[in-house]
C-alpha cells in the first residue's frame, strides 16, 4: 500500500482504504426487534440526509477505494430514493448489498432494484415459527419473508439469509435451518446476538445458556453434514461465552466506514456511544479527511492506545484488544481490555452475566425488567432518562 497516511496514530500499520462502506440510510423501521443494534437514542438523532448528500458520499468513498457498499438501516426499503442510490453505487463499481427484513418489498420493487444493479440482498429472519417471529419482531412478517424469498429467486440473486440467535429462539434452530434450506438459501448466517444497544438493554432475556449454545452448535453441525455443501452455514459464537475477544470490525478504522442517517461517519455502528470522541459528518468533511485524519477514526487504530493487560499481551495484534464499545459498556472505560477476555480485570462482569443466565434457566425466573421493544417512543423515554 503506497497511500500517504497523514495523522496516523499508530505508525506500525498504515490503514488501507475503507473497503466497506455501510450506508445506514434511515433509522425508520416497521419492526421493533429487541436485539436491534441501532443506538438506543436513535429517535433523537438528526434528520436523514437527502439524496444528493448520499450520492456525494458514494462518489467520495469509491474514489478512496471502497468496494463493498451495504445499504442498511433501520429498514432501507423505506427510502424512496433507494433505487437511485443503488444505481449510482453500481455505476461507480461498488458491489452493492441490501440488508433488509424484506418488509415493503414488492415484485415491482425487486425488479427495479435489480435493474438498478443491486448485486445481493441479505434477508434477515427473526425466527421460523410464526408465533415467535411475530413476538420478536412485533409485526406479522413471517409469511411476507417467505414471499420475499421467492422474489429473490425470481431476480436471480444469491439467497443469503441472516438470523439473529438468542435465548428466545435458539431452541428453534433446527426449524430455522430447515426453513432456510427449504427456501433454497445458499448461505445462512446464524449470528448470536451481540450485546449492544437494544440487545444490551434486553440482555437478561436474550443471553442463552452454555447448554443451549452447545445444542445449537451440534444441530448446526448435523445440518452441515446433511446438506453436504448445498447451503453454507456460518455460526457466530457469542463472545460472552467464547472467552475470547473478537477483532472488532476487523480493526478500528481498518476496513469499515459506517455512515448514520444524519451523515455522521463512524468506525462501527455503535461507536457514537463512546465518551470524549467526536465523529465528523460527511456533509461537512471530505471522506478522505474523515478516514485518514480525524481524531475519531485514529483514536483506536493499531495498538498504540492500549494499556495493560493489552499492551504487553501476545495476542494484541490478533484481537486488537477486542471491542471498544463493549469495554465502555461493561467496564465504563473505552481503553480497557474487552471484558470478555479472561485477562481483563473486569472479566467477572461477563462471568456474572453468563452465570445469571444459567441460574434463570435452572429456576425458570423471569427477568424483572420486561423486554423493551425498539421503537421511537422507548427511544425517547430511555434517552431522556439518562
Amino acid at each position, binding site marked *: 500500500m503506497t497511500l500517504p497516511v497523514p495523522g496516523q496514530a499508530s505508525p506500525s500499520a498504515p490503514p488501507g482504504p475503507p473497503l466497506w462502506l455501510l450506508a445506514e440510510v434511515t433509522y425508520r423501521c416497521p419492526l421493533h426487534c429487541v436485539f436491534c443494534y441501532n443506538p438506543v437514542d436513535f429517535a433523537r438523532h438528526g434528520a436523514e440526509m437527502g439524496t444528493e448528500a448520499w450520492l456525494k458520499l458514494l462518489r467520495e468513498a469509491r474514489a478512496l477505494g471502497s468496494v*463493498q457498499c451495504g445499504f442498511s438501516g433501520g429498514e432501507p426499503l423505506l427510502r424512496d430514493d433507494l433505487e437511485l442510490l443503488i444505481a449510482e453505487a453500481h455505476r461507480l463499481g461498488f458491489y452493492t448489498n441490501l440488508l433488509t427484513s424484506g418488509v415493503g418489498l414488492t415484485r415491482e420493487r425487486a425488479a427495479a432494484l435489480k435493474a438498478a444493479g443491486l448485486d*445481493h440482498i441479505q434477508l434477515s429472519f427473526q425466527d421460523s415459527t410464526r408465533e415467535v417471529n411475530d413476538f420478536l419482531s412485533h409485526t406479522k412478517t413471517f409469511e411476507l419473508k417467505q414471499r420475499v424469498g421467492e422474489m429473490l429467486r425470481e431476480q436471480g440473486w444469491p439467497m443469503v439469509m441472516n438470523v439473529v440467535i438468542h435465548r428466545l429462539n435458539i431452541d428453534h434452530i433446527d426449524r430455522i435451518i430447515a426453513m432456510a434450506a427449504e427456501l433454497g438459501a445458499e448461505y445462512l448466517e446464524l449470528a448470536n446476538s451481540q450485546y449492544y444497544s437494544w440487545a444490551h438493554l434486553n440482555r437478561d432475556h436474550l443471553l442463552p445458556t452454555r447448554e443451549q449454545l452447545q445444542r445449537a452448535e451440534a444441530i448446526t453441525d448435523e445440518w452441515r453434514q446433511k446438506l453436504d455443501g448445498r447451503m453454507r452455514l456460518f455460526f457466530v459464537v457469542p463472545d460472552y461465552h467464547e472467552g475470547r475477544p473478537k477483532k472488532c470490525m476487523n480493526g478500528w478504522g481498518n476496513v469499515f466506514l459506517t455512515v448514520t442517517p444524519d451523515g455522521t461517519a463512524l468506525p462501527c455502528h455503535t461507536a457514537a456511544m463512546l465518551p470524549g470522541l467526536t465523529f465528523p459528518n460527511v456533509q461537512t468533511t471530505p471522506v478522505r479527511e474523515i478516514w485518514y485524519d480525524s481524531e475519531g477514526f485514529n483514536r483506536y487504530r493499531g495498538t498504540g492506545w492500549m494499556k495493560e493487560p493489552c499492551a504487553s499481551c501476545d495476542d494484541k495484534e490478533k484481537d486488537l484488544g477486542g471491542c471498544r464499545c463493549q469495554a465502555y459498556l461493561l467496564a465504563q472505560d473505552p481503553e480497557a481490555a474487552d471484558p470478555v477476555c479472561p485477562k481483563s480485570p473486569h472479566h467477572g462482569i461477563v462471568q456474572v452475566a453468563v452465570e445469571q443466565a444459567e441460574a434463570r434457566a435452572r429456576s425458570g425466573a423471569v427477568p424483572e425488567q420486561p423486554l423493551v421493544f425498539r421503537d421511537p417512543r422507548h427511544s425517547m423515554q430511555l434517552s431522556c432518562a439518562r
Partner: protein
Amino acid sequence: MTAVSEATATASAGPLSDTTVPRLGHGFRLQWEDAQGCHVLLYPEGMVKLNRSAGEILARCDGQAGVGAIVASLEAAFSAQGLRGDVERFLLMARQQRWVTWA
C-alpha cells in the same frame, strides 16, 4: 466483512480438458482496483484480493474460452511455457471456493 465459511470439497479429481469452459461463479464479480493495485473478486459482503497470476487467470474465465485457450493466452501474454499445470491447479482450487464453475 463476513468471512467465507468453510470451503466444501466438491472438486472433481480428474484433469481438465481443453474444452472445459470456466466462468465466474454466481454472485461473484472480478474487477481491477486502482486503490489496491490488484484484481479483486467481489461476492456478497466479501472480497478476495488476488495476486497477479490469479487475477490474470480469472480475467480470462469469461464463459467463452476453454482451458486450452486460457493457457495459450496466458503463455502468449507472458512469453512463458508450461503453465498448464499451474492453471489447472488454480482452477480446481477456485472451483472449490466457488469462485468459478463449469459444466
